[in-house]
Each structure stands twice: as C-alpha cells, then as structure tokens.
C-alpha cells in the first residue's frame, strides 16, 4: 500500500505530500518532501505579519540544480474573526502559496474558504470532524486535517470522512513529547504500510509547539526524518529555512 498523495494549494505552487511506500528511505526513496509550513497568528501586528509573509514568499535558493522554497502558510485564529480574515486576505493578495486554515469559528472558516475558493486550502480541525466540516471540504475542494489524542478516535474520524466521499485527509495525532510524537508517527505509518490499516493511509501533520530556534530545529529535524508530511513552525529565520529546506532535499532523495 502507498500513503495517499495530498495536494494543498494550486498552480505552480501546488504542494504535494505523501506517496510513501516504505518505512526507510534505503528501501524505497521518499519523493514528496515534507511541506514546510509557517504559522501566521491573527493576533500579531499587521507589519510583523507582512514581514513574515514577504520573507517566506521571496525566500528561495538553488541547491543541486533545484530551486528550494517554503511550501505553505498556516493561518491561526487567536484573536477576532476580523483579524483572522484580514490575514487570509493578506496571504491571498501577497503570496501564491497554499494555505492551512486553523480556526474554531465556523463562520470565520466559511468566510476564509470563500476568499480561497479556487486555491485548494486545507482545514485544520481542532475537534472531532462534523458533517458540516465535510460539506465545507467538498464545497471548497479543501483537505481535512483531523486531530485527536487517540488512535481509535483518529481512525473513526477518517472512516467517517472517507465514507462521505472525501479522501483528501491528513492525520494530526496529538502527542505530549518529542519522542512520543516520533513513536506515534511510526506506529501510524507502520499500520498503514505494513498492516494495510486503511484509516491511517494518509499523510501526517505535526505542529511544533516552540518558538525557540534550537528547539524548533531539533523537533523539525526529527519529524522531517520520521514521517511528518506537513510540519508547522511558529517562528523562523533564514538560517532555519536554509537548513530545513536542505534537510528535506537530503532525506527525500
């Protein structure tokens, strides 16, 4: 079995993830590298957000004959709906990269999806998937990133989504430590590839919960190596971007 290939964003900047068929890169090369994703929090100042958007949009370099760039933005609502929609519009107007929407407010989500209606965004769910979420995903051709603290619940959610005809899914199993996250990522990937457990046959999503430079690098490195297909970082600089984009190129080769 191969992990489902998922696309976030469209056009030249469409980001494809998944497709792995083996647990180790020496068994079969990993192709679609981890989507490096930068978080934009709605509570931040407009000038700070714009600086980040510009840095990420413009950041690129050549290495081994390829142009390496950052893949996605994750827009997180941690203030008013008005702030959140403002950030969605800033990203829409200033970048061509794919977007993950992270909000608990359904009205805010609908408005954001309307703005990004032709852009194939992804929706990060923080609670169990609902029929309304599935309908929104279908209507706007959006992917669903399902979250849970338990394997059983996560599997039930993906089965529910799949039975409704949606297969653009990513898995977010919430863990409380780095080593537990690696363990959980491995268990999910092994279940899919070696036990043909279909509810886990999807790419993996990981949110790195630190703003410290060194701790972010430690976590991001471990998860690029061990099965995270979407990796969200809260805060980055050029040195971190250069290193992590090079690491992606190395491991996915």
């Amino acid at each position, binding site marked *: 079995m191969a992990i489902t290939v998922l696309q976030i964003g469209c056009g030249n900047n469409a980001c494809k993830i998944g497709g792995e068929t083996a647990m*180790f*890169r*020496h068994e079969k090369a990993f192709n679609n590298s981890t989507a490096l994703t930068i978080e934009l929090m709605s509570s931040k100042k407009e000038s700070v957000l714009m600086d980040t958007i510009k840095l990420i949009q413009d*950041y690129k*370099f050549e*290495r081994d004959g390829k142009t390496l760039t950052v893949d996605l933005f994750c827009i997180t609502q941690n203030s008013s709906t008005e702030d959140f929609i403002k950030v969605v519009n800033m990203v829409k107007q200033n970048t061509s990269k794919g977007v993950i929407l992270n909000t608990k407010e359904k009205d805010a989500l609908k408005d954001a999806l309307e703005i990004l209606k032709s852009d194939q965004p992804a929706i990060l769910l923080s609670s169990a998937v609902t029929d309304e979420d599935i309908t929104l995903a279908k209507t706007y051709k959006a992917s669903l990133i399902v979250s849970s603290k338990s*394997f*059983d619940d996560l*599997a*039930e959610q993906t*089965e529910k989504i799949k039975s409704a005809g949606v297969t653009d899914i990513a898995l977010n199993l919430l863990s409380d*430590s*780095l*080593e537990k996250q*690696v*363990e959980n990522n*491995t*268990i999910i990937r*092994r*279940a899919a590839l*070696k*036990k043909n*457990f279909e*509810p886990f046959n999807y790419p993996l999503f990981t949110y790195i919960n630190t703003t410290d*430079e*060194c*701790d972010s*690098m*430690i976590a991001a*490195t*471990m998860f690029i*190596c*061990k099965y995270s297909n979407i990796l969200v970082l809260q805060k980055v*600089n*050029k*040195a*971190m*971007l*250069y*290193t*992590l984009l*090079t*690491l992606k190129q*190395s*491991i996915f*080769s």
Partner: protein
Amino acid sequence: MKFEIPKETNPGKITEVVLGATDTEGGTRCNKITIGGWSSLRCLKFEGSHPHRPIVSMDVYDIVPEKYPIILKSYFGSTLDIPTDMARKCVEEYATDMINIRLESTRPEKGDVNIDETIKIVESIKIAVSAPLIITGYGSSKKNSELIKKICELTAGENCLINWVEIDDYQMIAEACMTYNHALVAHASFDVNLAKKIIKQLHDMNFPKDKIVINPSTNPLGYGLEDSYSAIEMIVNEALAGDELLSYPMIVCPGYKTSTIRENLTTEEETPELGHLDSRDACWEISTAMSLFIAGADLLIMSNPKAAQAVKISIDDMFNSGEVA
C-alpha cells in the same frame, strides 16, 4: 473502532559499551558512561528497552584547523590555542559528557609535529579534565598508528574510546587497546558490508565485544548526510534483526564535519540567504546531529556550544534523566 498497535519484537540488541574508568576500575575519570543496550528503533520505547541515553561529546583540538568558523572562534576565544583550557571550558561551561581529543598536528600536511609533542598535549588534557576521553586520530598511516599506540599506553586504565581503525589496518592499534584496556572504533565508510568485515577481523583477534563501537562515517547536511543517515539505519535494522557483527553502538562527528563546510566559512555579506552566522552554524550542526541521532547514533561529537547544549538537553528530556548511567 479499536486500533491494535502493530508491535514488532526484535531478536537482536545493541551491545552495551562502557567508556571511562573511575578509581574503582583503575582509572582517574570522575564517571563512566554506558552506551548501547537498546533493543528497538530510536524513540520506540513501547517495543524495546532503552536503558542508556545517547551521549554528547565535544571536540578539543591539538591544533585548530586553519579554516575554522568565525562563530566557533568567538565562542572559544583564546582557549583555542590552549587545549587544556578548551577542554575545561567544554566540561565546566558547556557540560559536555565526554571530551574528544582530535589529533591533527602530526599529519604531514598539517604541521608534521613530532609525536612526543602531541602526547604531552594529551597528557595535559587527561590531567586537566576528569570526563571520559575519546582519542581521534586521522586514519590509516604508520605515524598515526604509532601515535595512538603511545597514547594508549599513556592513558592505560582510563578506558578511553580510541577512534578509529580501518579494515586491514587495525592490528597495532587494536592490540594496544587490548593491552591497555581501551574501547575501539571500527570505521565503516558508509558500507554495511565493510563494517561487518572489520568487526569480523576484530572478533578473530578476540577483541572484547563489549569494547567495540562503529563509526559509520559522517557526512554533514548538504554534503551527503543521507548516506550517513541510511548507513546507520541499515546497520541498526540488521543489528536488531540479530546480526551480531553489527550489534554495536555508533559514533558520529556532526560538529567537525559541519565546521568544515562552505556555508559556515563564508560571511553574512557573501551568503545573506543563510542568515546570521551564529544561527547558521548552530542550525546546521543541530540538524546534522539530530538526523543521525534519530537514525540510531549513540555518541555525537559536536563543536558548536549552542548546538551541543541544546541537543544534550533535548536528549536528556527524551530519556527522562540528566544522569549518565
């Protein structure tokens, strides 16, 4: 829906290797360190035991390389010219678990210093710090073998880790390790079969199995890291599957290798896309080190103090203990 966790049991286990010797064992180190002993892939504690945390060591040079990153010079300052001071700084300020004495000055192309001069430096570091020691030579040559043999004698009973021997050129150093009670690194050059051959040679001469460590070879990020990464994963997989010729802990050198690459030897003006010097060196070394750690390396020799401390703290957290068992 009830999900059943797919658990794998491994017939093999990584051999435990003890490094360093306290006065109880006839040495003068303040502690001893055990690596290896684990029986499932890194971080997979649900299907195997991981009794000892991987170790962070730091490089101390007999002579600092001609090309050495500006940022590392700023961390170490004048101690770079005085190996004992650099060793003390690594132990006292940066809390490294072990000191790696990297010997380069006797190389014909790096000064061709007399062996006796280098030995004095090793002796002074041995006295200056009490952390367990790694002695890293520079590979296959008669002069290197003679140097390492004399250091084995000088450090008799300290249970140092002698780094390294290669296939078909191991006899003199391996015999010295056996005579003076040191552990030894077998160099594998990214090749699983080569690792098996050199270890078979050590087994054939009855070298103690609890004193062998493998060096799979380290390429830094951006310069073939993936070869080191996959070599480690292949060795670990075969070891856990029961191949006793590969069931040894592994040592890697992310610090030294990172400090030699183009990116860390340029200025911010020359390569602005790489960001600030301090961040780029630390980020590059962390990423190299943590990739090799997650693949299965047990002993990381690092150079950048910021990177070394962050990696050590993170590994300590993962293994739930700050104490070296």
